[in-house]
Structures are given as C-alpha cells and as structure tokens.
C-alpha cells in the first residue's frame, strides 16, 4: 500500500462501503431468489447468477441479495421478490435470465415494478 493522505482514508472508506452495507444493514434494495428444491429444479440457480452479474455491472453498493425457501407456488417457479425501501415487496414468477435482467433494469434501478411479470405485491397476512 502506498503512503496515505487524509483524503485517501475517505477514499478507502467509500470503496469498502458495499462490503459493510452487507454487515451493517445500510442497504436500500433487497432481492430474494427463492431457492427451494422446486426453485432450484426450475432454474433458480441461473436467476441468481444473472442477478449477481447485473449488480456487479451496475456497481451499486446498496443492493443485497438473499436466498429463501419455497414460496409455496411451486408451479410458477423460479420466483424472486424485490423489496425497495418503503415500498411493498413485489414477487415475480416464471422467471428467465432475460426477464430477471429486465426486472433489474426497470424495477431495481428504475424504481418501477414490471407489471407484466409481477405475480403479487405485499405479503400474505400472518397471525
């Protein structure tokens, strides 16, 4: 490492922001890929790879990806849920590599849910 100046400290801090958003909870978008047995069989692995690829291309540090189990609607797998801060989560179904990339551009980056692929918004009620 070269000798640092005061300004360099801030630069290093910014560069590592993404890593720590993950550990400290400073994120604004969360993408959940449903990876139950049904999801994996229907191709959720490719969806995950596409999501990871889009995020690294977008160079955004405030987006996190998480996996979750079967969402209950196995017939419409692969499923993914996109949660933007202060908005109800949107669940997408019957995903393909192309569809998830489009959702990423429109919804995750653009902020507008892609209605044609959306299954539901919000959560099931629980007691």
């Amino acid at each position, binding site marked *: 490492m070269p000798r640092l100046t005061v300004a360099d400290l801030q630069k290093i*801090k910014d560069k590592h922001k993404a890593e720590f958003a993950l550990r400290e909870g400073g994120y604004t978008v969360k993408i959940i890929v449903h*990876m139950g047995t049904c999801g994996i069989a229907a191709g959720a692995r490719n969806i995950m790879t596409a999501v990871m690829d889009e995020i690294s291309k977008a160079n955004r540090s405030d987006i996190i990806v998480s996996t979750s189990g079967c969402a209950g609607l196995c017939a419409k797998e692969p499923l993914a849920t996109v949660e933007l801060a202060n908005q109800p989560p949107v669940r997408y179904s019957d995903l393909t590599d192309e569809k998830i990339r489009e959702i990423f551009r429109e919804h995750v980056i653009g902020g507008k849910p892609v209605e044609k692929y959306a299954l539901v918004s919000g959560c099931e009620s629980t007691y």
Partner: protein
Amino acid sequence: MEKVRSHLMLCSGTGCVASGTAKIKTALDEELRKRGLSDEIKIVLTGCNGYCAEGPVMSVYPEEIFYQRLTVEEIPNLVEEHFLKGRPYQKLMFREPEKKAAIPAMKEIPFFKHQVLRVLRNKGLIDPEKIEEYIARDGYQAAAKALTEMTPADIIQTVKDSGLRGRGGAGFSTGLKWEFASRVPSEVKYMLCNGDEGDPGAFMDRSVMEADPHSVIEGMIIGAKAIGAHYGYIYVRAEYPLAVKRLRMAIDQATEAGLLGKDILGTGFDFELDIYLGAGAFVCGEETALMRSLEGKRGMPRPRPPFPAVKGLWDKPSVLNNVETLAQIAPVILNGAEWYRSLGTEKSTGTKVFALTGAVNNVGLVEVPMGIPLRTIIYDIGGGIRKGKKFKSVQLGGPSGGCIPEHLLDIPVTYEDIVATGAIVGSGGMVVMDDNTCMVGTAKFFLEFTADESCGKCTPCRVGTKILLDMLTDISEGKGKEGDIETLQDLSRDIITTSLCGLGQTAPNPVLSTIRYFKNEYEEHIHQKWCRAGVCRNLVTFQIDEKLCKACGACLRACPAKAIVGEKKVPHKIIQELCVHCRTCYDTCKFKSIMILPAGFEGDPQEFLEKNAVGAKEEK
C-alpha cells in the same frame, strides 16, 4: 470485483481457534466450492466475537444469523440449507439454555442485546489482518483529526472532558495522566501500551489486540501527539501469540501506509512504534515494574514519586495506558466528550469490557455501559447460573479484587460503588460462583497466585502473602484455630499498608472481602469442621437422604471409590470408611438427595441442616 451476496464472519479468536476454526474454514471452503458458491459468498476471519463458550461461532450477514458449536460434519448441511436454499439452519442456531427454542437474529439474543459496543466496535465485523477493513469503519479518521485539526491541549481537554478513566484497574483519569506528561519538557518522551494482562480468568485486552489491533495503535498515535512523544512500545505478554502476530502485522501495515513512522499522513508528525514481549510476570503489569522490564532489567517496582509522567522509561517522561483505554480514544476524539459521557454515570463514564466466566450459562466477553447493575450482567447477559444452581458470589478485580454477595447485586457497576463493597472494577475479570464454591478455598486460590507472583522486594508482601496462604490452607484442612480470623485480618491490613506497589497493597483483598461477607463459612471451617460447599475434603461427610433418594443408581455408578451400596427400590447408602469425599455423588444426583455435613457427623442431619441454613451475612 465480483459481487458478493453474503459474508460469513467466522470467529478466529483464541477461544474459537482452540475449538477448531481452522477445520471449519477448510470444510466451508470446500463445500462452497463444490456448490459453486465460492464467488458469491465470502468467508471473513474475525477477532474474538465474545461468545467463547459456544465456539466455534459464526455470524452470517446480511441476515445477521448467529451459528454456534460448528462441526465439520454439519458444514455440508449448513451450506445446502442456508447458503443454497436460504433456510437458516436451526440445528446450529443459538438456543437459550432455559427455553431451548432456536432464536436466530443476533439482536434478539439476550447475550448481545444488552451490550453497547465502543471498545469492541469492530468485533466480529472486520478482518483484523486487513487495514482497509479498519479504515472502512472510520479507522484512522480520529488520528487524522487529531494530527490536522487539534492541538495537544485540545486533545487533552477532550479526553479530560470525556471522563475516561484508566481501564487497567486503578481508574485514574486518562486526560490528567496525559496532561502531566505533556507539561514536562523533554526532547524524548515515550507513549506506552500495557498489554500485560495477568489476572486469572481475564481476557479483555487479548481480545481487543486480536480482534482490532489498529484501534490500539490509533489510540497511541493520538496519545503521542497529546504528550509530544515520537517513540512508543506495546508491552505484551509472550503467552499471547495470536495477539502478538496481529499487532506485528498491524504495525507493519500502518507503517507501510504512512500511518506510523515519519511524517504521518503528510502532517509532519513522527511516531515510531514497536512491540516488546514480556515473560508473563504478574508484577510487570505494575507501571514502574513494566518500565524496568522494558529496559531489559528485572521487573520490580520502585517508589513513586517520581511518577512515570516525569521519570519513566529510561528516566524519560512516559505515559502508560491499558489496551482497552487506548481502544476508547479514537471514538472519543471523533465523536467528542459529550457523546462519550452520554453513557455511564457522572464519575464513571462510557463503557467497560468484562470477561464473564465461572458458573454462568453464557461465558464470554461483554461490553456494557457503566452504571448497569451487576444483576443484569449475570442474569440477562450471562443467562443466569449454570445447571440451575444458586448464585453465591461474584468475584471482581481478580487477585486484587473481592467477592460481592447476592444482596449487593443491584448496585451499579461504577468505580466508586464497587470499591465500597470491598472489591474493585479492576481490569474486568468477572468470575461468577455458585453455592458449591467454598469461600475459604476462593481466598486460598487467589493467595496461591499472589504469593507466587510477589516479586519479593517488600518483605510484608513476600512473607506476608505466604503466611496468609499457610493459614488459609490450615483452615481448609481442618487445622484452623480460635483467633485465626482476627489474625488474618490484622496481617492483611499490615501487608496493605507496608507494601510498595499495587500487588502487595491489594493482595489481601480476597481474604478481607470473603471474611466480610462469608465469615460464617470461616467459622464453620474452624469450629464445626464443616465446609458447606463440600469442597474441603477433610471437612465434610456425605450422607444420602433416604426420603429423597429414588434408588436410581446414578451415584452408585459414578462413585470412583465404590463407596455406595444399594439396589433397585432400596434407598442407597454411603459407606463412610470407603468415601474419599470427592463430591461426585452430590454432583451426579438429580434429586438433591446427597447431604453435605461436617466431618465425622453424628446426629440428625435434617435438624443440623435446618439449623445452619443461613446465607451470606455482612459483618456489622
């Protein structure tokens, strides 16, 4: 850089390394690779997480799920369930000892919930071997501020206003200490760090040096600027190999990055830092002895004054701060004195780290705001007493401290309140004892330590601690005499008033405080030949209460001397001639049917136990 979606913060503090972190790391690497997850899931080796009792431990982000007692066999299941399918793996999650229901998130675990992290701000969050990770969490920002925007007087004023007191035990104002040294004119001064942690059962400083070595270095840079020092040493015991390795690495990285050495951050300020390995003598934790040892001489204390601020290392003005104190400095400078004072009490500000050990369910490292009641630490964070036993006493301050009984558990943890009980906050060792702990034995344990560690310079300490130890040994072997308690107290006071350094001045504290709160036990040992805890073998008879015995045969099988007879549906009996008084039957019995009675007991055991059922009584 590939996008990473999850961080596995695998603890590699000394505790978890001992319980197998390296094997877990290999197994995780292998399994993630097999599943094609290596690129999107990152393993970060962190310093001590604090929850050593359940190691190896690992926190998973962003979900903040806490896994414990990891085993190589379970790794494939864990990886498949959680990292592939996103289902947190219940089997390895934290379980509250009393409830047995899996609770996942860290913020919901009582052990973590009551803590406030300042010193341990980076524990389990950064990789201690990477300076970038420390910098990413505001690291060296405080040093930059101190070197560019503040005068030495500003720094000293801020530290004084924060109310920060030395965390090594004495509790002296850190700001004042710096001010004294800054006022002495000298070309050469030294900024020193005391990493010679020596109290039995204490591991706060080791943990900080292992988990966040840069926080100590940053505190030293700020202190050096405040007092005008350009050279410094970290004195650390050689028994802490991992701490030494990480400190060395941190110093090298900081030097390479221009954060140590000449012209730090281009500000023109020079500070060179090195490590000195101590050989692990307890007395070298005392400041004047530590400086002698650093000079390459035999570590022995000398009279003060002159204080080290005037004549310290090689007779130059020197400041010696404890590891934890130094780790508090950066946040104080960055956030200001008011912020620091917002936690704690008027005279005991901020937070304190404690090494919680002994008979509690959650053994580990905890950081709490000062002023919190002892009860909260022991029952909420510590999860209560192990195996459902009864609390007897908590020992604070190690060999220099004392025992605090049940009825004082609601006092706040501040320097003043703890001293009033006869104990001291000390460096932060907190040993919890249950009702099967003998208080004479406890005093004896600490005196064995101090008698051994006394450097021998002052006769009252060298000979006095030995006499105290001999008397305690006699009492625990049934050779106690009338008047022994008074002699112990008199001799203790003599040692305290006539010893030069803190070792001798505090060595009798464990004796005095156990006599103060548990005098009944001393009297029982001397007069009734009875150790109610069942520890002192010469002072005990074990008998089985026939009414409570379920004739289950557990004690019979456990007895190493084959001294118990009985069969199904027939209450068991102990043959006294064969009994070796090891207490195994008592610890094995689930029905509390084993009675602890005085040596050579004859008569009605129930009547005796009822008559003598008294708790801790404070001496009036």
